[in-house]
């Protein structure tokens, strides 16, 4: 067993874990933050994407213990319960960027990461290329692409929120 400390969605957590516990298992099973999903076992589908120290990572391919000392943000941490949605969340709803919802948390976390790296004016080719690590089986990506573009723009209009993330 090993002690791990991290901040998850702004909350400090400490746990004594089996070192083989993956970060995705830690948030889902220990913290019961089940919005982060698992869709494959070869690190490809991106359903498990969350942020570690502000960067999108596949939580199925990171040990929880590797995130020791880090700050982790999951889909649940984007907006306060019952509070205002993050602009990217709102854009996914507005543009019907989700159907079954399973890939959605990973998509949204990946999308925010794209904006953090590439800025607020994203063209279609950039968005499609940057979604390389996220599979969706429902939407044909059409509306996801629209949602990411709109969400990126909206994030640009809300500088204060973004800084808080």
């Amino acid at each position, binding site marked *: 067993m090993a002690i791990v400390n991290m901040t998850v969605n702004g909350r400090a957590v400490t746990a004594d874990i089996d070192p083989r516990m993956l970060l995705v298992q830690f948030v889902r099973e220990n913290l019961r933050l089940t919005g982060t999903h698992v869709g494959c076992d070869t690190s*490809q589908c991106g359903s498990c994407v969350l942020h570690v120290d502000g960067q999108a990572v596949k939580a199925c391919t990171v040990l929880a213990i590797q995130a020791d000392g880090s700050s982790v943000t999951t889909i649940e941490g984007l907006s306060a319960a019952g509070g205002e949605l993050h602009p990217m969340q709102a854009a996914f709803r507005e543009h*019907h960027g989700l159907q079954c919802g399973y890939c959605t948390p990973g998509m949204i976390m990946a999308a925010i990461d794209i904006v953090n790296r590439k800025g607020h004016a994203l063209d279609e080719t950039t968005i499609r290329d940057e979604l390389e690590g996220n599979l969706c089986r429902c939407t044909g990506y059409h509306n996801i692409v629209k949602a990411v573009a709109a969400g990126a723009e909206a994030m640009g209009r809300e500088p204060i929120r973004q800084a808080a993330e």
Partner: protein
Amino acid sequence: MTGTGIGAPVRRKEDQRFITGAGRYTDDLSRPGQAHAYFLRSPHAHAKILSIDTAAARAMPGVVAILTGDDLAADKIGGLICGWMIHSKDGSPMKAGPHPALAQGKVRYVGDHVAVVIADTYAQARDAAEAIEVAYEVLPAVVDARAAQKAGAPQVHDVADDNTVFRWHLGDKASTDAAFARAAHVTKIDLVNNRLVPNPMEPRAAVGEYDPGNESYTLFTTSQNPHVARLVLSAFIGVAPEHKLRVIAPDVGGGFGSKIFIYAEETVCVWAARKVGRPVRWTSDRTEAFLSDAHGRDHATHAELAMDENGKIIGLRAQTIANLGAYLSTFSSSVPTYLYAPLLSGSYDIPAIYAEVDGVYTNTAPVDAYRGAGRPEATFVVERLVEVAARELGMDPAKFRKRNYVKRFPHQTPVIMTYDAGDYGASMDKALELADYKGFSRRKRESARRGKLRGIGFSSYIEACGIAPSQAVGSLGAGVGLWESAEVRVNPTGSIEVLTGSHSHGQGHETTFAQLVCDRLGVPIENVIIVHGDTDKVQFGMGTYGSRSGAVGMSAIAKAIDKVIVKGKKVAAHVLEAAEADIEFKDGKFTVAGTDRGVGFADVALQAYIAHKFSGQDLEPGLKEGAFYDPTNFTFPAGVHICELEIDPDTGVTTIERWTAVDDFGVIINPMIVEGQVHGGIAQGVGQALHEGAIYDESGQLVTASFMDYRMPRAADLPSFQVGMTVTPCPSNPLGIKGCGEAGAIAAPAAVMNAITDALGHEDIAMPATPQAVWRAAQKNAAMRVAAE
């Protein structure tokens, strides 16, 4: 139309939970005292099980139980069933071999279930599974359906020598042969409809629970049709009595057919929960999903089209061999038969059609319905035939199609179906315009200047959806009726719960069904909630597949709403002290005709429950109505998809440049959601045409058993789609809905392959048209050009 009524692009009510991570999928549940199941699967495609030694594994830490097929037999648990009886040409019933949830004596495909380990943790269960010693006598395997029918092929089931489950046919052979005999031109093609792995992003999962106090069971499962699961698990498999088994399908992360079926794992979780006295949970990993989710398609077809001297189609015949895998999955037998051959008329007026279909066992995962189920296979045959015929006749493929379209309705095809309404020419014209068909040759020249090959391809598909009238499907062999049920419960405050037998796993029912209620009852959409996916709440339902939730599921709701209005009028008559016949209901208000006296819907609801204004003798209190709706016909969505693509002959990479879809889905409840369904279907169809294919090697190992090898469509593989609609309301249901869930997947493969063959200038390429395959075909193309010069 109100802002939230029928036809409005209402933003989805269910999204709030999905975008905030508050969705609840089966694997998200954590049950007190739960144990974890891990299935030991066969590493061999075909083998006798000589012995299973679990002694060492039982002694491993955390192990609660290890169960095998012998334990199932001892508890008299029945096998999994196939619910659709097919009879062969000679009248004999299909030959269905046994399908135990855990293997009994033999394994028949890689991934077949050998034993289950139940332990305190998943890791412990998996560790222990590795310690189980199974002695196998490995047998030769066969994975190709055509090879399986050959003399001397390994026999998968004792009941089916030559591995043939049925030799079925449809249509009139004599008149079809006669048409071919007098044809001026005959087009012949051989096609393979590649095997696909459905891959909804949420893997299958199940949690079984047993409550000894009530002797009752609960199954949480990733199901598209929880009531059917309960029926099969109780009436046929016999793990629990129907009234003591509650099946809950919570949020389900996509299905595409693969979550219709009743599988071994959920059966075992329910059964084992009682045996071990703890909740038993299982979640598939992706590799298990590849190995053991029912696959789709896998047909080999020879087809011919006969034309007269005017380019009018006069006959079609097809011979198809369908790979059904190692066992007959729940609806597998219906897919290559009644969901396939009745669509071979396409959108065309073809007087004579004859189809022969053999269903064949092989040592591969079971094959069953996958988005479109039979109809993509039929569309691929018809639309490739028609395209090739047009080319052979030197006719424009759009004109050739238009010449042969069905133009008068209702239209009786020679293969069962009565098309009730449509205007295929209108869809084609609109699609040609949106696709700028006129500008294609200019774009082709421009591509050529850059050394690229550009092609355009059509797919003028039709599908039979909403399945369907119970009497009709019953006469064709279905073990169930295909109606739907609904209950509309109006609460005293006027808020409404709608209980539906349809199941939403991405389709947005919580929104579209609520829109119907808003539209009809004039209540705000926030006051409506859609309840589904729980057999304790919803009385019965047939579930969601075959694009049936709108046409059948919503029609049931509409029927129940009508009853609510009738009852509401009675209540209003008492409240307003008027004659019931004088009460009108409009815009959420009951009024006395010709007066301004009225009462709102919510007030009527309250009055119905307090019942102060009437006595129980003349009117029952309460406002709750149920309905079962059985449609009068299939529905026939149809449309035209046009794919324009560019091939890089140096690498074989195909880029889809433009996609135009014009669909006729009848009346549309929510265009935003409908378009989303079309987008997703197209992506799956493009996936089939260009990328996806399940490959077994000769020994029966699945080579494409992960996303590392199985090529899923990604964002960068697809363009934005141009989606247009035409509308001819469906006459056979009260809402005029035809259904939209499968159209894209049905239409797309033929459009892509017609475009690729157009670009290449020859037909010699199969799905999936991978870069390698396209490069080879382009080489041939170049060689042909050289030869011609």
